[in-house]
């Protein structure tokens, strides 16, 4: 077993006493929101790992999912999805984060757990319940804000995906933009592309689907059928990361070639499934997809008569090394380091690293056919770190990367936040 390069930094305390499903790191502030079966959302500090406030009273059943709206000035906006079939939107002024920073640095304020009732009560009042989005027929499983923050996607056991537009009219009005019902089973996860208005979804019908707006209509542009079990979670690659080169030679040139390649296909998508696999997907660049689709159409077709459909071709880019014995519930693709983390029912955390394979090491190079232009660069994924029993005997439901914010943090350092069945949330650091 790989020697673990992942070590426990802290638990978030006090934990929920019931199952926790997901922990969403805030896009800018050092806080996270943890969804619990006790119908609450707990907001913890990543500065001192303490509970800051508990959002209660909005949902009648388990809170399954939550997402912070990006690019909001002076305020934090959280969307929550519950088994009660509703989506809640909550708001709070950001003076909150600054007050918390002060408290974290104040050594005189070293309160014993549970002794902060008075402060806690004041803070709780500051979470304003903004609106309840009613539309799904059954349990809401995932919510995701588009990169601009204008659109909110939600999905449920009712097999539908709803896209809501936040009208930002100061009156908390949301408008239903689209309802997509192509999935044949529960939609377990929705996740927006990091820069484009492209939505990925996955679920109980074992498929991954991609959606875009074309002439005012949202429609499916791709359906990936390769997993052999429920697809539990999706995450997108960032746009800033580049893998290292396996043997170091020509590293700079290879990395820039790799970045060119990715610029053509765009950020990749990672998925995890009940079938115990983690897979990476890549969109074929439009041109090569069309060339592939048209039998003898190598060259010479004027671009004006090329098919203009919005359909996209997605192919499997990598099957990550087998590492889980039971269902894999979540994957997280770091947008700072490019590392992928996966967690699941077997209680393991696995971290995978991608490296560019230097083409010169290919001994069969002489036998392969000469390729026009540049050869497509290959990468390999290896296990970078393994933690068995990361939450003791409990299943791990979610993992997310966040910026490290405690005193030990070095610049741009990341932590992994994992969320488990016993209500525990743990923060891990990587030794590079």
């Amino acid at each position, binding site marked *: 077993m790989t020697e673990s390069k992942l070590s426990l930094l802290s638990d978030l305390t006090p934990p929920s006493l019931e*199952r926790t499903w997901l922990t969403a790191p805030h896009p800018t502030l050092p806080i996270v929101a943890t969804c619990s*079966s006790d119908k609450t959302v707990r907001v913890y500090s990543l500065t001192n790992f303490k509970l800051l406030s508990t959002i209660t009273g909005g949902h009648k*059943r*388990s809170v*399954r999912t939550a997402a912070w709206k990006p690019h909001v000035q002076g305020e934090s906006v959280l969307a929550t999805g519950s*088994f009660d079939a509703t989506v809640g939107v909550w708001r709070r002024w950001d003076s909150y984060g600054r007050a918390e920073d002060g408290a974290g640095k104040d050594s005189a304020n070293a309160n014993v757990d549970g002794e902060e009732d008075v402060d806690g009560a004041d803070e709780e009042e500051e979470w304003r319940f903004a609106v309840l989005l009613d539309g799904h027929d*059954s*349990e809401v*499983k995932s919510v995701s804000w588009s990169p601009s923050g204008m659109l909110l996607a939600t999905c449920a*056991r009712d097999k539908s995906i709803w896209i809501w537009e936040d009208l930002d009219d100061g009156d908390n009005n949301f408008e239903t933009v689209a309802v997509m019902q192509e999935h044949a089973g*529960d939609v*377990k996860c929705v996740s927006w592309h990091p820069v484009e208005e492209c939505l990925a979804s996955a679920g*109980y019908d074992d498929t991954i689907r991609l959606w875009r707006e074309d002439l005012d209509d949202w429609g499916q542009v791709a359906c990936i059928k390769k997993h052999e079990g*429920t697809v539990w979670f999706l995450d997108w690659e960032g746009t800033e990361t580049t893998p290292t080169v396996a043997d170091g030679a020509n590293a700079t040139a290879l990395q820039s070639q790799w970045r060119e390649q990715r610029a053509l296909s765009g950020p990749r998508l990672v998925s995890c499934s*009940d079938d115990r696999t983690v897979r990476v997907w890549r969109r074929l660049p439009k041109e090569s997809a069309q060339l592939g689709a048209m039998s003898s159409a190598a060259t010479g077709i004027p671009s004006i008569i090329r098919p203009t459909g919005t359909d996209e071709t997605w192919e499997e880019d990598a099957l990550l090394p087998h590492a889980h*014995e*039971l*269902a894999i*519930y979540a994957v997280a693709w770091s947008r700072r380091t490019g590392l992928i983390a996966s967690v699941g*029912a*077997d*209680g393991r955390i696995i971290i995978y690293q991608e490296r560019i394979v230097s083409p010169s090491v290919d001994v069969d190079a002489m036998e392969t056919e000469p390729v026009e232009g540049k050869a497509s660069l290959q990468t390999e994924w290896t296990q970078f770190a393994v933690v*068995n*029993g990361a939450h003791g*005997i*409990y*299943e791990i439901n979610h993992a997310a990367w966040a910026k490290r914010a405690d005193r030990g943090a070095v610049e741009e350092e990341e932590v992994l936040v994992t969320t488990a*069945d*016993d209500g525990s949330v743990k923060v891990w650091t990587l030794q590079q």
Partner: protein
Amino acid sequence: MAEVQNSNPTILNVADLPTRTRSTIKAGDYHSGIFAAVPNPADFLSSDSEDDDLLEEPIDEQEIYDLIKSISDPEHPLSLGELAVVSLPDIFIKPTLPNVSDSPLQTVIVLITPTITHCSLATVIGLGVRVRLEQSLPPRFRVDVRIKEGTHSTGDEVNKQLGDKERVAAALENGALMQVITKMMETCQ
């Protein structure tokens, strides 16, 4: 549930159901179930009683069977053991992570045999068994309840639902469904 689906099921005599005393394991090791209401007074007298509490007694297939055999069938006034919906040879316990030597995780597999191949209550029965085991067993157990192969027309669909943690969790918050499950459990001690 207006209509009884299988009006004439095969019924086993309770006295013929497998019990601990008939098995080869000696009866003295057995304290009437893993969560016996009355603790053995010897545990308190023993000087190292704290260690005893930490040492969990091994759980075997018979003990799993005893936990689920008395669950009532949702449409008959009979137990799952009497109807042979659950049976001792269809219960398996194995290490969840065989390659991790010190892992305490164990998987309990229970294969269910519906009384008729198109029984629409198979999911409810499976859910009842899963809930009973999850509520009774320590959390280091992973419960895997599935329909025995070839005994149900939509076995794969039922298995997928029973294996879906999120659906099971949501079902437990569904009042109408839990009423049925609770009624099935009334006959369990």
